[in-house]
């Protein structure tokens, strides 16, 4: 690597000066808070400690032990995993299909369609969740009106504990699949045309070409996107906050929503910090699963 000057000590000083604002900010608002959060998760920091930090006492792993016996925490964890396990694959499969469609040479105006599917991605989750809350309205909502036209019974989407989470999943898929579609489109454009040509000479049908050429060529992109999706979906918050407040019967209570309620509504900040570390652990599991899969693939 070429460098600006060969006098090493002044150079190091100059580099540190340039990096200082960023390093200082990251240290104060990121590195130290991670440590502080862990210490907090070992304490009974609550509303009384908020006035005077000295009131907090160490409880070691007491918070984590309490989580283990907290049915609401388990409910939130299972809800979150349910959301990730369904919304994740559905988003990715839909995006794969869409990217194949939008990548077709015969499609005119592909640019317009790309922008259209990407529009939900850049818009605000709160605003969009409010719009969908009305679309899901049991009496006046357009979704139930559509069902009625098809001759089906209207349903109380956000009021039925069995349907509330699926309703949120549909919203999340709608909001996010455009992002995945664009990433897959970028991946599709890197696949050499020769491969398809060779497959066609071998008499492969369109579907066979997709299975034997596209999918293997795209597998790295899909793996990367799957990890990003899992990490993003584990942080489910705004949708239930706006649409259901975690209800009905806690059917849409997510881990981050529970963490927020414990920490910033009831000011049980020590307990809340321990939920944050469980969330972090789940993300690490997702990350290492992806890592192991990639290694297994290479073997």
């Amino acid at each position, binding site marked *: 690597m*070429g*460098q*600006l*000057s060969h006098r*090493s000590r002044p150079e190091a000083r*100059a*580099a540190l*000066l*340039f*990096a200082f*604002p*960023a*390093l200082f*900010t*990251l240290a104060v*608002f990121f590195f*130290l*808070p*991670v440590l*502080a959060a862990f210490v*907090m998760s070992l304490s009974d920091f609550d509303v009384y400690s908020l006035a005077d930090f000295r009131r907090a006492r160490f409880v070691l792993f007491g918070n984590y032990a309490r989580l283990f016996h907290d049915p609401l925490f388990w409910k939130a964890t299972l809800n979150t995993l349910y959301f990730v396990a369904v919304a994740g694959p559905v988003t990715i499969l839909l995006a794969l299909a*869409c990217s194949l*469609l*939008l990548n*077709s040479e015969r*499609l*005119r105006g592909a640019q*317009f*369609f790309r*922008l*259209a*599917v990407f*529009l*939900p991605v*850049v*818009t*605000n*989750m*709160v*605003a*969009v969740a409010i*719009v969908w809350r*009305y*679309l899901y*309205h049991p009496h*006046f909502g357009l979704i139930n*009106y559509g069902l009625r036209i098809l001759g089906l019974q209207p349903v109380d989407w956000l009021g039925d504990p069995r349907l509330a989470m699926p309703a949120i999943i549909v919203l999340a898929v*709608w909001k996010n699949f455009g*992002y995945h579609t*664009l*990433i897959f489109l970028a991946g599709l454009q890197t696949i050499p045309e020769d491969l398809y040509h060779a497959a066609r000479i071998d008499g492969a049908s369109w579907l066979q070409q997709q299975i034997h050429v596209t999918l293997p060529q795209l597998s790295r992109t899909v793996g990367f*996107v799957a990890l*990003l999706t899992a990490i993003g979906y584990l*942080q489910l918050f*705004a949708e239930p*906050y706006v649409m259901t407040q975690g209800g009905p019967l806690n059917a849409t209570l997510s881990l981050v929503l529970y963490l*927020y309620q414990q920490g910033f509504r009831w000011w049980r900040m020590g307990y809340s910090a321990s939920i*944050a570390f469980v*969330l*972090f652990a789940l993300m690490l599991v997702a990350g290492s699963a992806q890592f192991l899969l990639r290694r297994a693939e290479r073997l």
Partner: protein
Amino acid sequence: MRGRRWKKGLLSAALHLAAALLALWSCFPFLWMLSASAMHPGEASQFPPRLVPESPTLEHYRALMERLSVGRYFLNSLILAIGVSAVSLMVNSMAGFAFSKFSFRGKRALFSVLLSTMIIPGQVTMLPVFLLLKHLHLLNTYFGILVPGMASVLGIFLVKQYLDGLPDSLLEAARIDGAGNWAIYWRIVLPLARPILATLALFTFVGTWNDFLWPLVVMTREDMYTLPVALATLMGEHTPDVELMMTGSVLTVAPIVIVFLLLQRHYLRGIWMGGLRE
């Protein structure tokens, strides 16, 4: 021969139909939001549902601005989005420059430490940073969002990556002409890095505008709400006022849609570059 062409035409029609349905499903909620925002009170809550207003009205836009001080929330969101973008652009590009064009001991190790922290979710640091800001009396101030958002590891990484690809000869020439480090940064590095900086600024702007959880925690006084926080609060009080809520949603969504449509080239480049996200 004829049958073949006919089949091809049919296939093409099906393709365009599928794409059109896809676009409609993506855009329909926005179209309905826009339409309902121009309806008279109660018009969006009838059966069968109306798709277009009978006589369009701007009364909800007026009500939000005059009665519910949405202008103030809009301003808060705008100040924060512009402020965070400008300051973080400066801080991240300086650090990216330091990590790309200088050599010092422990550089590689320091950079790997920075990168490895990208997996730590914001929800972990949220509680201590909240207490710190409370202690510094920065809750309910613009600084409460501006200061923690000043530096981002991803931003530093992207700038470094971009500068690594630029030849050092340009900088060397300036140095021989007697330019100091600051002059090199300001007059050579920043102009050269313009494409990546534009992309980064755009992502930061959109991300800050759309952020919800952190402003919800930091801004508890009503006059400091950002648009999404105000909207979520308004939802609690005005649930039956569909048309009013849709108007608030339009005001929150429209600026970003306009910015995105105008600068889509820069935005999409960020996506191609590998998973940039709000």
